[in-house]
């Protein structure tokens, strides 16, 4: 093996001499064999970022080049796992190092001892190509893990047998002698290929009214969710991870709080998937690199996550990956870049920041995999933490250029406990038109019309509020006072949603639609009543309208909403 010596150590970046490495090769640093990655080559000097703490490492210690890029292990056993940024399972680390993360421990991403029940999908003599399925394993109840031919292999099956195998044992052999095991290695910085790339067409249903109605995201789409601290980024991300209708969830806690990760670790296993009724954890992979874990591993964690997501996509699944937060990832890049003494771009970020962000988000998308005609998709939802909540900073701006759904969090809304605190005036979704046919067919032909009316009223409210600021609300014409009231109803009954309420935490599309309809029903009746000369006071005093809020907290909402509408009709008749 190619071995050299350490020349200089300054924090997480070290310099080695005497190895001839390629860019992004994984190297082993020092006597303790800490894991590192080559990030620059300068004459005889090789510059390496180290994924673990470098305290006490001395110049002259050995450096070994493995000659391989940073890769993840892919295969059965990924689901329900909890990894650090470089795919070391946290429970294994706990077993080997205790409650604190120390260094120098190597742990494979998959359990190499566990046996899985393998069922072949092809038989002897069948021709197979890279990416095609040769068998499957029921990884967790209800989730079939397809075993694929590695991308560089093809030929006729010589041997394949059902039975119990570990991930390293060959389950099949090709006629040219290639043995296929369930485990595959894939370099994290390289995206996995697909047979065909498609444009997104179906919504990712999130169960969150504000997202599903006003700012929908498509399966295979990319969304950014920026917001200052305290605006509810993490809660929003977790809500999406819990309730969105993807088949597989990859949740990357990148440079975030330890206690929050613990909450995720504790809560997810207790939650059930509203679709399958099985534990949510069964479809989830968690990656936790907290803010005090080594900075280079933070940089890698996002790639580890998206590679795992692509792998499940290739089985024909809809995968959603949440990265919380991409700003921490960008800052990790900045930190490494400044230690390399690279010429900084805007605000000290490296000049290649936007390229890296674009490359990452490009790994999302809807595709047809090699192995099946069933489409797969990777939906990326990236949280952004702009300093001071200022959206003009480089990470937010570079992200905006590549994402199509923008969910802007607003600290002001959070302060008045309007959650999720998505600002309806600055957020947008470019998928509205693409998804319109789907909503028309699957929920209601009038869906888009309802949504457009909601937006119109909210925008009108914004204008009216400016006038109210000057003259007070009583001075407005009666019709506009009704608009203000309807806008309030939209905000409180539609947009606000309680993530901590057992029913309200998830809202079906049908319920969202009925709430929108009932609000508009009131608006129609109220305006009609004004036409008949009814006093504004009594129109605003209709009691049934405030009962719409109750529907949010009821499981059996359909009857209730229809009752509320009837009651409303009756009250208006009495006026």
């Amino acid at each position: 093996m190619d071995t050299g010596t350490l020349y200089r150590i300054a924090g997480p970046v070290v310099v080695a001499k005497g190895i001839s490495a390629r860019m992004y090769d994984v190297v082993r640093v020092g006597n303790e064999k800490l894991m590192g990655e080559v990030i620059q080559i300068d004459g005889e000097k090789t510059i390496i970022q180290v994924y673990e703490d470098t305290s006490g490492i001395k110049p002259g210690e050995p450096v070994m080049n493995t000659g391989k890029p940073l890769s993840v292990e892919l295969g059965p056993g990924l689901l329900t796992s909890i990894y650090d940024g470089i795919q070391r399972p946290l429970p294994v680390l706990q077993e080997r190092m205790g409650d604190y993360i120390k260094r120098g421990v190597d742990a494979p991403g998959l359990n190499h001892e566990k046996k899985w029940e393998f069922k072949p999908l092809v038989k002897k003599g069948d021709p197979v190509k890279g990416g095609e399925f040769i068998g499957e394993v029921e990884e967790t109840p209800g989730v079939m893990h397809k075993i694929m031919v590695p991308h560089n292999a093809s030929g006729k099956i010589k041997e394949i047998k059902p039975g119990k195998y570990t991930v390293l044992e060959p389950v099949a052999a090709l006629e040219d002698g290639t043995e296929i095991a369930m485990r595959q290695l894939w370099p994290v910085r390289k995206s996995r290929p697909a047979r065909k790339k498609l444009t997104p067409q179906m919504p990712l249903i999130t169960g969150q009214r504000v997202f599903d109605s006003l700012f929908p995201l498509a399966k295979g789409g990319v969304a950014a969710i920026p917001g200052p601290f305290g605006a509810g980024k993490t809660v929003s991300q977790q809500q999406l991870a819990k309730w969105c209708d993807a088949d597989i969830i990859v949740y990357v806690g990148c440079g975030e709080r330890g206690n929050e990760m613990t909450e995720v670790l504790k809560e997810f296993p207790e939650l059930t998937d509203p679709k399958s009724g099985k534990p949510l954890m069964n479809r989830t992979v968690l990656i936790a690199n907290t803010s005090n874990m080594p900075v280079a591993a933070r940089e890698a964690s996002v790639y580890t996550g998206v590679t795992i997501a692509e792998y499940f996509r290739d089985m024909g699944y809809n995968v959603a990956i949440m990265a919380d937060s991409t700003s921490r990832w960008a800052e990790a890049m900045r930190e490494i870049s400044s230690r390399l003494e690279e010429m900084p771009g805007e605000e000290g970020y490296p000049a290649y920041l936007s390229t890296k962000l674009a490359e990452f988000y490009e790994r999302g998308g809807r595709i047809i995999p090699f192995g099946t005609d069933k489409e797969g998709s990777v939906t990326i939802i990236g949280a952004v933490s702009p300093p001071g909540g200022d959206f003009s900073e480089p990470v937010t701006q570079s992200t905006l250029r590549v994402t199509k759904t923008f969910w802007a969090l607003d600290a002001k809304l959070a302060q008045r406990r309007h959650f999720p605190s998505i600002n309806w005036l600055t957020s947008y979704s470019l998928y509205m038109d693409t998804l319109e046919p789907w909503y028309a067919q699957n929920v209601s032909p009038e869906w888009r019309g309802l949504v457009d009316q909601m937006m119109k009223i909210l925008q009108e409210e914004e204008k009216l509020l400016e006038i109210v600021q000057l003259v007070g609300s009583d001075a407005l014409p009666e019709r506009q006072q009704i608009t203000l009231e309807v806008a309030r109803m939209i905000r409180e009954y539609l947009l606000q949603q309680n993530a901590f309420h057992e029913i309200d935490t998830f809202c079906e599309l049908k319920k969202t639609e009925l709430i929108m309809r009932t609000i508009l029903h009131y608006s129609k009746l109220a305006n009609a009543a004004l036409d008949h000369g009814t006093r504004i006071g009594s129109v605003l005093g209709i009691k049934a309208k405030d009962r719409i809020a109750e529907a949010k907290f009821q499981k059996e909402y359909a009857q209730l909403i229809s009752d509320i509408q009837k009651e409303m009709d009756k009250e208006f008749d009495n006026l």
Partner: protein
Amino acid sequence: MKEYKTITKIAGPLVFVEKTDPIGYGDLVSLRLPDGQLKNGQVLDTSHDLVVVQVFEGTSGIDKQSKVKFLGDTIKLGVSEDMLGRILNGAGKPIDGGPDMIPEKKLDIIGAAINPYSRDSPSDFIQTGLSTVDAMNTLVRGQKLPIFSGSGLPHNEIALQIARQAKVIGQKEKFVVIFAAMGITNEEAQYFMKDFEETGALAKSVVFLNLADDPAVERLVTPRMALTTAEYLAFEKDMHVLVILTDMTNYCESLREIGAAREEIPGRRGYPGYMYTDLAMIYERAGIIKGKKGSVTQLPILTMIGDDITHPIPDLTGYITEGQIVLSRELHRKGVFPAIDVLPSLSRLMNLGIGGKKTRDDHKQISDQMYAMYAEGRDLRGLVAIVGEEALSEKDRRVLKFAEAFEDKFVRQGKREDRSIADTLDLGWELLNSFPVRELTRISPELKKKYYKGVEQ
């Protein structure tokens, strides 16, 4: 152990040494000046050609003849239970005239990250006796909740009141306070010490003092010393530890000083690009570990430069900590103590620590309702300034009155007033009773039935 006399450059707090044997990164360094004085430092950068040492006591008096000794080990702190009741300097040496302590063990002060899988989720409600904290921004055990203050605001009084009154209802485990002062004035330090002595709190405290005239570089180790002690007492001696770090702004200034001396490329406002990671390595040392009885709760204090919450120090802090308590100059001017502005304040772990079994069933909803009403009231004040109160609707006037009463009765309390959570919530209802029941949209009908005794049943 070899002594080197190969200093080639001295700049700011840094000393550059040439032609050494291989030296470990982060190793402790001892420097002997020609006059016999000893100084300590740490290796910041090491290579075959050059070693960069950061000197904790400052470089004044060091010349090229000074001798440098590399101790071959990273900075460690000797810890023992005897530290309770002691006053130490910023580098962990006793300064109270008492005897030297015999350490039970020596711990690396950098501290490793707790494996997220080993953490237990914080969920014990800490009653601080301050209504604005308990009802609106609840502190739980294992949380890190900073106080964002401004110069001249009473953050010290508030921190002391919390330290004095904090308790978990119905539990009698040993509760200790670790107080780490970084770059505070002698007068402030005296104020803290006096309070500690008067209330008898010193006996169950460990105090680390790095005063304004102490070396700035020492400030970088002070919080780490304090947290190492905290982890030891919490996870090895089963104690519940509250760590007060004041003032983190001074800490960050020191960080910037070192960065500048190393000629690093500066980030925002001249602070180093790695400040987020550096702060995280301090703040993240709070929490609870599964199977351990103790806990570390952090209450860092920082003064916002120019009262600007978007300044890098409060900004990065807010992204790491689990919420923040923000003090308001406006309330302080009005004579309201504690001048806590609940609107920008937040406790992210609040929902884990409140509710029926822990505090009371109406806690969450009453807090949301008061938030919503107070936020509206504050907006209306702006409106009143333009159009006058007469132009407001009946409801708006009620909201406006509520906002006044909220500040005057709910936020304001005495410096020795220790309100129980039940009293705090009852007080909240007392204020909300001024609204007709239908205007309390954030509270469920059942709870309104149970607690509401207002103008309209």
